[in-house]
């Protein structure tokens, strides 16, 4: 293991919200039959997470499972654990039709935090998703786009959201969020 760096090396900035890269996060794509109890059991045996509800998150002790699509989950864990999870999941799911791949380094992760509705406002400048709190509540994973690139967003609380995008566009997404939270450009809509 050599020195591993994240997409924008932990860059951060402050406007009317704070934008910070979350650093390296372990992520594993798991595909399989979410309706199959053998699948659920195998996943549980490694992650100690139940299966998340549609667009939801299931949390275990250290891992989280995010619902991505009807046949896809995203395991979030410590970055250094990801490869071991891949091995363990592959073993646990052997015999079932599945796919498990490490995508930790294919992603950049950002945290946007601020008070009131500031986080939603900054993000609404670049995502068409309906960000009204009663529609996109805390803990729901929404796959959408940030301006011109795909992203997944999730509110960890009213004052913080997590954004996951591809690593190669980390700089673009960071710059987008910085631009969107420029002081004085508050919208006051939410």
């Amino acid at each position, binding site marked *: 293991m*050599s020195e591993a*760096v994240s997409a924008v090396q932990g860059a951060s900035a402050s406007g009317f919200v704070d934008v910070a890269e979350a650093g390296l996060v372990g992520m594993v794509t798991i595909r399989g039959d979410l309706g199959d109890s053998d699948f659920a059991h195998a996943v549980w045996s490694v992650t100690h997470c139940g299966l998340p509800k549609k667009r939801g998150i299931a949390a275990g002790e250290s891992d989280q499972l995010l619902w991505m699509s009807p046949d896809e989950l995203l395991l979030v864990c410590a970055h250094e654990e990801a490869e071991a999870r891949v091995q363990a999941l592959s073993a646990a799911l052997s015999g079932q039709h599945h796919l498990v791949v490490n995508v930790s*380094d294919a992603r950049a992760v950002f945290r946007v935090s601020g008070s009131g509705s500031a986080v939603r406002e900054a993000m609404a400048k670049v995502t068409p998703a309906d960000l009204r709190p009663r529609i996109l509540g805390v803990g729901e994973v929404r796959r959408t786009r940030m301006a011109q690139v795909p992203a997944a967003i999730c509110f960890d609380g009213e004052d913080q959201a997590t954004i996951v995008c591809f*690593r190669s*566009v980390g700089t673009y997404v960071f710059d*987008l969020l910085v631009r969107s939270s420029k002081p*004085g450009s508050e919208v006051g809509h939410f």
Partner: protein
Amino acid sequence: MSFRLDTGGRFIDRSKPRSFTFNGKAMRGFEGDTLASALLGQGQMLVGRSFKYHRPRGIVASGSEEPNALMNLGRDKTFEPNARATTTELFDGLEAESQNHWPSLEFDIGELNAKLSRFLPAGFYYKMFLWPRSFWKHVYEPIIRKSAGLGRAPRHRDADHYEHFNATVDVLVVGGGIAGLQAAKAAGEAGAEVLLIEQGAHWGGRAPVDGAVIDGVPAAEWVEATVAALGAMPNVAIRARTMGAGVYDHGYALAYERLTDHAPDPSLPRHRLWRIRAGRIVTATGAIERPLSFAGNDLPGVMLASAVRDYVTNYAVAPGKCVVVVTNNDDGYRTALTVQEAGLEVVVLDARSEANGPLAEQARAAGITVRVGRGIESVKGKGKVEKVWVCDQTRDGSNPDPIKADCVAMAGGWSPVVHLWSHCGGKLSWQEDGAFFRPDPERAPNGADGAAFVLAAGAANGELETAAVLTDAYVAGARAAAEAGATGTAGAAATADVELSEPMLPVWNMPERASYALRSKAWLDYQNDVKVTDVELAAREGFESVEHTKRYTTLGMATDQGKLSNINGLAVLAGALDQEIPKVGTTTFRPPYHPISMGAIAGEARGALFQPVRQTPMYDWHDANGAHWEPVGHWRRPYAYVKPGEDVHAAVKREVLATRNSLGLLDASTLGKLVVKGPDAGKFMDMMYTNMMSTLPVGKCRYGLMCSENGFLSDDGVVARMDDDTWLCHTTTGGADRIHAHMEEWLQTEWWDWKVYVANVTEQYAQVAVVGPNARKVLEKLGGMDVSKEALPFMQWAEGAIGQFSARVFRISFSGELSYEIAVPASQGRAFWDALLEAGSEFGVTPYGTEALHIMRAEKGFIMIGDETDGTVIPQDLGLNWAISKKKEDFLGKRAQERDHMTDPLRWKLVGLETLDGSVLPDGSYAVGEGVNDNGQRVVQGRVTSTYFSPTLERGIAMGLVELGPDRMGEVIAFNRVDGTFVQAKIVDPVVFDPEGEKQNV
């Protein structure tokens, strides 16, 4: 001449003077003024020249319908053309200049056009081009270029920035007049989430000016209370200076917020484009008054009657001292009363034979002269209104009598603003008694649920009396809320005092039987200089469709989209065709309602954010080491690394030679990497690729081709078998996302029952090609896994460690050299790159870019997707038959490749090309044949697909597709150059370097 009144002005603050310049002249106004009211307040009636005839023009309107007062605003980086003075709020230091004048506004050469107007009739441009072809380029184009357009295009990069904002609401209410306020209130009270937007800076629309009384109090008081009430409702958001610009499918609407136009501040966004998804949209956009068509109706000083009272009431600006109100309805009397109260002289000419409604009686009681049955024969004056000739409206204008006047207020009736209703397909019905088109609720724009998603309200719905406006808006707001899912109940609707009025009289020509001479001076479209006689001419020449007449005459095609001219033009056309107006129909309303800035449309997408730039983990190193960037898809890849003192070509040459002679490094991270896994993956791979992939042994690599179902070569790359049911497909850089989608499409739509999963892991890995005779040595120096020929032969892969990096190592070569492509986790890509540079220094390690990659692959005769292929090329054209399995029953493209045209022996096929003089063939050059084809073009027999200078061979090398090429080895054919000369090239084998492959297989 216009002037500022001593008292009054709802919107202005006299304690806050503001200075500005107009055509360089210093002027003063007040906070709250628009540029238009400030200009009028300073006596500036002349504000521009018309488009075609350069006629002097003044301010006609007080809102976004203004056709004449278009300005160039600001300078250099804040320059903006075509800004309407009527919608431009005044601020200190504003710089405005009038447009379309030369050399000056007061003395304009182009005015001569007016004298030549009989040579510039409707359809002038079309007719002119019938003249000699030779005139197009040298005579017409320069003239038209010089005279086209009104404003100048900006020459500098915009200093301001812009943004978008996405909002989802239950109900969007467009328009902050009393209808919009009432609709928003009703919807809000019913519990809907409401967004109410108003284009101007003020709420309440016309009602306070027009003297409405609502709930027993003056409209202004009701407006203030209602705005406060809405502001206190948590489910209602209200936003001024935000215009509803367009309505689109599925309840999508665009709104245009102007944040700093009234108070420039480059640190803030100037405009914000709202992208709104609404359950229901209520258009409460009001109505626009129509001009009357009489001779000289375009002289500065001729204005809409409603605008005259707006200027007097809102800005304390009198457009003149002696005002003639010419009307065909009762509403015009409001203007007469307003200007009289302001102490101005006023005469009313009412085209109707009688006028006994309450407003007319009120005017008479106030001592205003009212002359019924009268119209205007003509307005005369030198660049301004000086004399109004009054005539019998029902006759031809003979024997007119003069009135001395400096302002004419036209009250031609009202047209509902139906634009937003119509944008998404809402239809209109003709309302006889008001002579206007109104939204037809039976033919509304429908949403995904099959129900109307736009509801018109108030004046925009054809309701022109205050009480009816409020009731209509209340119903629309409550209905919109209920349909959007709100379950509450709206409070009561506001009530208004009854306003009685007599019927209006449609007047399309003034006087009714005006002579040709008069009609040819009666303007319909001020901005594009279209007159009554132009529309009549179009009708005579057979342009019976209103859409054709519009284009032929340019009626309504200017930047105001005919807000004033539409109905009058239609009526004239209907008259000329002897048809009823609704039979003629309307032209199409298109967004935006009023021009919006390009910056707002672009939003954040400018400068560094114009497009996402995809960066590999080694991007920063490349950037710091002279990378000459090449865009590949959204990626940026180094074309070459240019060292100080070197040009790009020298850098490329150095990179090729260093790699061939010792050691090169290529950042290959952008290559697509798709994992295909599952019990049916082998079957799937055999369908996707032309080769047999299911039999590829674990641990081995195979070059493969992918075709579309039409047989054309779509992508290529090396496939590695990872384990029993897993394959890793390398794609081209630009192909990764496309091929991923291609695979998913087949899996999801055709072979949905196949057990295959695909994952795109392109970005998980940084991939480095370590290339050259010393490639193995540098890896052995780093230590780790065995990379010897025996342990890792050519076209195999292995997993292990290189130095301290966990890696997948592929023995594949795109250069013909000993080559390892090594994938490490992206987070360690930069560290791995640095380690290779350090370890490779003793071998003169040389990072190389895409151009060196291209040259080395071309020397080996390897094809490149996008060079040798262009969507019309099949693998057989490229001599790749060896990669097309004959054993497989099927693969995508197989049947297509058996079509006659695909098996035609005369298809152009891949060969190498060697110029006799060693020069580099021009890119895209054609091999010429004998004679000409049916189109009179030179016959061609082939073309160049790749051409480079080979540093290895020190001469030009090329590949191309040539008719019967592989059968013509050694033949010399001619390729054309742009300068008309030809270069001779010999057909040779495409592989010009190490044809036996000895260098890569060591």
